[in-house]
């Protein structure tokens, strides 16, 4: 990732947040009223998906590729 990539992504985010602050909200759910809600939800959600799944994998789901060979 080059610097201008990061700048574009963060710039886009900034624009959306400014719009959220200026334009009245129109959707029915309470979380839509919170500016930057989806910023936080996107980042935390993605992190959670990665780590919880990995943890479940280590706990019981992932097995050696030969697991079924002698089943």
């Amino acid at each position, binding site marked *: *990732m080059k610097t201008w990539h990061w700048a574009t992504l963060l710039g886009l985010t900034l624009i959306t947040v400014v719009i959220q602050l200026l334009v009245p909200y129109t*959707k*029915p759910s309470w979380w839509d009223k919170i500016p930057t809600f989806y910023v936080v*939800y996107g980042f935390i959600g*993605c992190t959670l*998906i990665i780590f919880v799944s990995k943890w479940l*994998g280590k706990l019981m*789901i992932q*097995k050696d590729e030969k697991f079924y060979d002698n089943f």
Partner: protein
Amino acid sequence: MITFNIPPFLFFLLGGLLLPLIPQRLRAGIFLIPPLLSLWIIFGLEQGTRVAVDFMHFELIFLQVTNLNWIFGIIFSLISVIAGIYALHMDDLRQQVAASFYAAGALCVTFAGDFLVLFLGWELMAVASTFLIWARGTTEAVATGMRYFLFHIFGGVLLLGGVLLHVADTGSLELTSFASGESLAAWLILAGVAVNVAIPPLHAWLSESYPTATVTGAVFMSALTTKSAVYVLASLFAGWQILIFMGVLMALYGVVYAVLANDIRGILAYHIISQVGYMVAGVGIGTEMSINGTTAHAFSHILYKALLFMGAGVVLYTTGKSKLTELGGLYSKQKLVFWLYMIGAFSISGFPFFNGFISKSIIVASAGYEAMDVAALLLILASIGTFLHTGLKLPYWTWFGQDSDLTPTKTPTNMIWAMGITAFLCTFFGVYPWLLYDKLPYPQLYNPFQLYHFIEMTQLLIFTYIAFWVFRKKLAGEPYIAVDFEFFYRLAAKGVIIIAYKPVALVDNWLGNIYAGFTRSMKGLATFFIFNKCEGALDKTVHYLLPKTIVQGGNSLLKIIRGDARDLTSAMSYILILTILLIFVSLLRMIT
């Protein structure tokens, strides 16, 4: 426009029957004719059209056009054309015939007006699609195909059980929608349909067979089985609240497993479960808006999922590899394939101006309008996972990441064309959704192009991307398999073998002893008769004819057991279906 009220599945059935008679070099092209004809016929069909045949006091309705099934018929035919183009380079007759019958089954289910025709289509799909797995030819494919087949037959029996109870209760075969938890018959039918929808724990057939199927077969499979079942679910079980719970569970279940999957088509298969979860939840919510959402999302999903499977199929076809641990660094050699795949990935992730954006959001919004906050939030969480895997993990570790030094062979032009057409459609419906919205079952009031919808998706996607970039090393493929419910299928099979083997061995032993005793006594009896003629006759029977027949029978049985399991199962499947049909017909007679 002149309209013909012909059940569209007949074209595919006829196509499948005639394909073996057509010279090999024309066959792949001729394969496209039935879906094109079907598409043309369905375009002309008007709502309420009905074609029925009287059969043993029942009316079998082979064609019944409703505001719901028309659009499913269109997309099933359209995707068969596209998948046929994708398979133009292939000359495997088995796959061509199997795919034709498979599509025939799906269209039979879609336009069925009664339970018996629905069931026939259902079973045809199960049998035909199994051959698309077996055609891969590997030992794993034979075993997986067998499990797939048995599981679908199990689902078919549940469905049949429900249908029989329903007919016994109401005396009618006609398709009717059920009120939530209405009767045992409804529950049984739901269970049978749930197998094809792949609701956990009945889903493992999907995640293990789609990565194992042939390159072109998987494209058909990704489109037909689950979505035809979604149609049945939407027409029979709208408003069953349990489906909201199951749908959300599916959406998240697929996401968790996609983190752990190493096979690229395995990741995509788990995302079918996840995406179908949205549709199931939409059926469960049961409002006009959510049923519209389910229909629109099935339409979009078939397009982008086929595109994704085609992309992954090209990778497998050109490199022979499908595991993330064995792939990487292919971008410079497959730029066009990568970008076409990414259009599918943008679509499934709900990027603005791609077709996921205009369909998935209807379901999430309808959950919001019904104040189902938890369901809506969890469905949004699942959509984060969708972008993470199909849009980031899979393409990053396949076309970028560590260079695998693989040199892919040339991609057949027809594969690129098929991907191009699908990518165009994904974008077209994303930019101009009204063409789809106008054909939805109910008036479509939802407008996806709202400022807040753009803001939501922009923030969500950017920060999912940033989290991926931070933790991307964690998402590299790992040389493990993720054990799912197929573990229990295998365990059950093992149990059956153990339980069945001992009594069978015991009985066999016992019969053997009796037979040995019988021959000994007959021999004794024979020697007792001193008359030549009599002795000769007995001798011939006891020592020669009888054992010979038994030995011959045993040998042919052994041959079947040791020999090609595929021949046996194909024969058995037809016998099984025939038996089920006979039972069905005789029960119908009893009832009437």
